């Protein structure tokens, strides 16, 4: 395993160790164990219902797995509330866009700065003074994200009125505004045409290279996954069936069987 510069891997940033999750009698995940290394793009692939999104939900604290541990920079995440996990520097986007529909793009991105700001009800309500200074300082950070994602022209638009592709981009922006150390992207390219996909892939590579952010990516488009990711984890029926570089995974017979089906003799 190697990062894109070919150097040997440093210590893992996130260690996922024996995660098991079930809903009633249905086992969504069992014994998932793999590492995520700093500043890499880690893809998670697998057929529909394999447990990819459940895995992300465990990391971001929306689900509480019954077995196993998730350690992020040495700290166990299991049992922490989602907002505490966000404060540690883990951001995510959702498979079905979960933006704040009635707010403007700028307000959505400013919410991404929430964890870095301090203002409460009183400083907000009195506003002039410390409240305004803080808002302006963080507005500058938000404008940098707007520049990076090329969404200047829509910054004052209500998110609900934007096209699907732009909403996906704003959602990535909201996660980026958090300045995360780990960014979880759940199908950021689903439902996009090839041009939009290309743009999105370019943004993801930019983020990875310029900000050295670790990215965990769930994606169905194998072309994109094989092109941009450093490591790939393959899930099927809640189990990890393969892990490795894109080339290794592509050659793995279990993966081929999972995707193309198996010949029964």
């Amino acid at each position, binding site marked *: 395993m190697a990062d894109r510069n070919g150097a040997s891997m440093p210590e893992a940033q996130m260690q996922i160790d024996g995660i098991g999750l079930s809903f009633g009698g249905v086992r969504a995940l069992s014994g998932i164990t793999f590492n995520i290394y700093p500043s890499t793009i880690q893809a998670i692939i697998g057929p529909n219902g394999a447990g990819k999104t459940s895995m992300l939900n465990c990391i*971001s*604290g*929306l689900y509480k797995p019954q077995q196993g541990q998730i350690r992020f920079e040495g700290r166990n995440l299991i049992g922490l*509330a*989602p*907002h505490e996990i*966000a*404060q540690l520097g883990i*951001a*995510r986007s*959702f498979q079905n866009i*979960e*933006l*704040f*529909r*009635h*707010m403007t793009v700028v*307000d959505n991105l*400013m*919410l*991404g700065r*929430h*964890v870095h*700001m*301090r*203002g*409460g*009800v009183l*400083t*907000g*309500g*009195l*506003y002039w003074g410390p*409240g*305004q200074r*803080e*808002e*302006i300082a963080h*507005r*500058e950070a938000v404008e940098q994200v707007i520049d990076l994602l090329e969404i200047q022209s829509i910054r004052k638009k209500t998110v609900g009125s934007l096209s699907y592709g732009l909403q996906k981009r704003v959602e990535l922006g*909201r*996660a980026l505004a*958090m300045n995360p150390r780990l960014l979880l992207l759940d199908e950021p390219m689903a439902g996009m045409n090839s041009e939009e996909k290309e743009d999105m892939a370019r943004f993801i590579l930019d983020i990875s290279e310029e900000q050295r952010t670790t990215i965990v990516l769930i994606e169905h488009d194998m072309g994109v996954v094989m092109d941009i990711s450093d490591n790939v984890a393959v899930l099927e029926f809640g189990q990890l069936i393969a892990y490795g570089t894109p080339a290794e995974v592509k050659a793995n017979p279990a993966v081929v069987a999972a995707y193309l089906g198996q010949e029964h003799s």
Partner: protein
Amino acid sequence: MQSGTFHSTYAGDMALRPYWPMRIRIILIIAILLLFPWFGNRYWLNLANTIGIAAIGAIGLNVLVGFTGQISIGHAGFMAVGAYTTGLLAAHAGLPMWISIPIACIVAAGIGAIFGMPSVRLKGLYLAIATLAAQEIIIWFLTKGDKFVQMATGDRRVVFFGESLSIPPAANSLFGFALKGNNDFNFYWVIMTCLVLTVLFVSNLFRSRAGRAMVAIRDQDIAAQVIGVDLFKYKLLAFATSSFIAGLAGALMAHYRGIISWERFTIDVSILYLSMIIIGGLGSVSGSIYGAAFMTILPALLSNVSRAASGFMPAFANYLPYIQQGAFGLAIVLFLIFEPEGIVKMWRNLKDYFRLWPFSY
């Protein structure tokens, strides 16, 4: 026609009134507010004061329902907490209102936060029913409170709450200056100052961090959690802020009317406030004011019309009160059908029409 406005600073871009027509309008409104009491008679002043108090209460409810998305039908209960706290402090401790009203607001905020705790687990209609409990418990306490005091003191003659509570006129003083003479005129200034401060506070709140977090909870609570918003904390803060403002409205009403009883804070009043913000516009400060004005003026207007009608149609005189109530209900229904987003949306449509005129297609 306006082609665009260009801001060169973030502060300018984030201003409450970023465009000059808005600033002119706000100056006009303030001028009218300042001039009105010198020309209005007692009837008009009373109406303006009633609207002012209702507007403060409606803004408070909108913080919770319109901005944070937590339905509450216990709003009148929180207003009662404010009214009775200041009433008891004025009647039994002899405190002037500039001390007792802030205390009343803080007590209302605390009670509101306590009754907001179910919001952690409950959403939507289920939360509405839980806030109904707040409404009923508070009113129950106000009607039965004297029994507890009598049991505690062992003295059956102690009367704390009574059937109604009179506030000594001496309590109506600001920073040592007694408000004497024309009650409507004096309270006009107190109420409008409170209304302007409430409007400023709430508008500022919802363009900064804490308010944004509350709106995020309304729009998408799961995403709000994942970007680091502590749901419990901000829901309770919304309840506390909303109840603080409700307490202010209740306390002002107590001092203005001079007498309070629990009958002014029943569930009908909670529902009246809900209809104010729905008709005015959910999640809008100005909408709360429009809604409060509409719901106060319409019944007054209808009763004037019916009084005039009873002159030349004496046969109908007996039925007029019912027709009046029916017309009130009909007006609300028509409103919800033709402009479900409230008066604030109608006003916006009107502005857009003139801004784009003559190219309004």
